[in-house]
């Protein structure tokens, strides 16, 4: 695979500048016709020095994590100069540390790590850095900045913020509007951040009040069960924010079973089924807030640039940035087509 799509470099650059929209759009992994509106000159995308990238992530037992793996693999395949060493995913801290140590011993050039638990894996990140292997920390952040060269991940707070503002705008002018929240796994920090962002956004709209919140477990089954309860508990409300589109499949099922359609729903993450429902526009789901799995593809880009001692195309710096936070764009009927190709199953 020598002839590479020439636009990738520029997309890569744009991604670094933070345009989540572009980022999300640029990784239709199987085609070259990226829908992103971007015509800047291409940055360095020519094959360079061979780079071996080690990739260690958690067990892909969930739609989003599965999409993370797919994104990383597909992006690595597109570069003729990149070899990807990918470990079996594990949610067990000890097992993941072992896998990363194996990659260190194999002397890979760069490591991309999505830790099952960022805090617990900080030490092994430090170990890799000390061994001279730069680490790209993906999504769940290490405790110490010394443990990674670059962090790239999603914006959980921003997700809640954008969902809250979207709902607030939709309910503008409605007095005593009632909103409910179907959160994700409550023992994950990211769930707290999403809720915080949501609550902060709702403060901008004094007419909107959050009347109930239940935590589900990111699964279809829990989404159905918790949503069924919420619907029974709240005989009338105007909007629902659901943290995760996977559990949203269950939530939508519960809404269908209860025969309710008297509110608007906003999802989270960016699953294909959610995009399709938004496009069809025949149910309560009107929008979803992105938490793009394309960040894994961008992490491969960054790892490659790091391995080849390059900067990011489009930026003035010689080095790649120290941290990149993706934007949690709101996808609704008006822009869903643009994002459709990034939806994960």
């Amino acid at each position, binding site marked *: 695979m020598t002839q590479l799509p020439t636009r990738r470099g520029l997309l890569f650059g744009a991604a670094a500048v933070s345009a989540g929209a572009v980022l999300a759009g640029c990784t239709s992994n199987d085609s070259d016709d990226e829908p992103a509106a971007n015509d800047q000159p291409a940055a360095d995308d020519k094959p360079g020095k061979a780079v071996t990238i080690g990739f260690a992530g958690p067990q892909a037992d969930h739609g989003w994590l599965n999409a993370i793996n797919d994104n990383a693999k597909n992006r690595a395949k597109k570069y003729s100069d990149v070899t990807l060493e990918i470990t079996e995913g594990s949610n067990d801290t000890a097992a993941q540390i072992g896998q990363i140590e194996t990659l260190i011993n194999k002397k890979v050039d760069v490591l991309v790590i999505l830790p099952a638990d960022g805090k617990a894996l900080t030490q092994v990140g430090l170990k890799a850095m000390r061994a001279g292997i730069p680490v790209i920390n993906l999504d769940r952040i290490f405790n110490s900045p010394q443990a990674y060269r670059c962090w790239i991940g999603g914006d959980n707070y921003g997700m809640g913020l954008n969902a809250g503002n979207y709902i607030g705008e939709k309910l503008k002018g409605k007095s005593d509007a009632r909103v409910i929240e179907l959160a994700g796994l409550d023992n994950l920090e990211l769930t707290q951040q999403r809720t915080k962002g949501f609550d902060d956004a709702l403060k901008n709209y004094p007419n909107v009040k959050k009347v109930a919140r*239940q935590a589900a477990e990111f699964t279809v089954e829990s989404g159905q069960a918790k949503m069924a309860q919420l619907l029974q508990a709240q005989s009338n409300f105007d909007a629902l924010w659901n943290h995760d589109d996977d559990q949203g499949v269950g939530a939508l099922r519960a809404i269908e079973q209860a025969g309710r359609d008297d509110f608007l729903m906003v999802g989270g993450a960016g699953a294909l089924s959610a995009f399709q429902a938004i496009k069809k526009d025949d149910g309560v789901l009107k929008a979803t807030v992105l938490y793009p799995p394309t960040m894994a593809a961008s992490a491969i880009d960054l790892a490659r640039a790091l391995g080849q001692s390059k900067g990011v195309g489009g930026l003035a710096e010689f080095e790649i940035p120290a941290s990149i936070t993706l934007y949690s764009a709101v996808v609704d009927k008006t822009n869903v087509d643009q994002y459709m190709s990034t939806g994960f199953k």
Partner: protein
Amino acid sequence: MTQHASPPRDDTGKVPSAGQPPVWRGLFAHADVRTLSLLGVLAALILVGGITKPDEFLDTRNLQLVLTQASVIGVVTVGMTFVIMSGGIDLSVGAIVALASVWATTVATQEYGFGGILLTAVLVGLGCGLVNGLLIAYGGMVPFIATLAMLASARGLALQITDGKTQIVTVDSVLDLGLRDAYVLGIPPLVMVFAVVTVIGWLVLNRTTFGRRTVAVGGNAEAARLAGIDVRRQRLYLYLLSGLCCGIAAFLLIILSGSGQNTNGNLYELDAIAAAIIGGTLLSGGRGTITGSVLGVLIFTTITNIFALNNLQSDVQQIAKGAIIVAAVLVQRRTASTT
């Protein structure tokens, strides 16, 4: 008779019943007291629900909801009760539900429509139960280990089949069963299945040779063998039965959630064991009732429902759930020992 006249001292599984197979009269006497105390707990919960949220809790729709949510785990618990009564344990129920649900919702299976999905779910459940049964009854493996191995491999296989993706069901005849239009006399189809499984389970346990043999094997396997019971075959059948229940539960879950996912049935093993124990089933085998287990499930589901209606957060829910388990078992033992 003797070992049932005095209250059991140890529910942790250390002390199996004495040498003789249980006598039915004694068992029923115990069951009645236990059942009554469980009904008391349930009544107290209903009171709490009725006081805190009268409009939402005491509502036909809420009753339908509670029973529907009890159905899936309820069917699993009926099978689990048989297994525990025989002195065994089935840790693989949640994983079997997951595997059966994802297998039954693959694109290939969905092509055969309603029958294809139902048949696949049941066959996968039976298949896993068969493997469990063969390993335990004829392979001489400890139930804990054999079903733990099944737990791991069935979850692994479920993950492999789905590749971590959620498999959405597109067969309308299956999906429609979860909608209100399908209710007969206000009863959701899922609840009907749960009721039928419960009644059959009760009849099999209390009115058939199979049921008597199960209790005998759990009370004292050696005595049962000497009494001419083919203990190994009985055990095989029991794990098959548990697997069958998981297959049925998986189908119910598919109707309920409209999808198959490898995370389905998460921690069902613990919920089912907890419900059975609360229902008065002795973890070491030999004693238990289907009524008790089903009441155990209903108590759990009602608690969850009341919590959600009052918008309690999950941390509070978990603490309270633990406290209520302890309270229910203590109340039950107190009542049992004063009789």
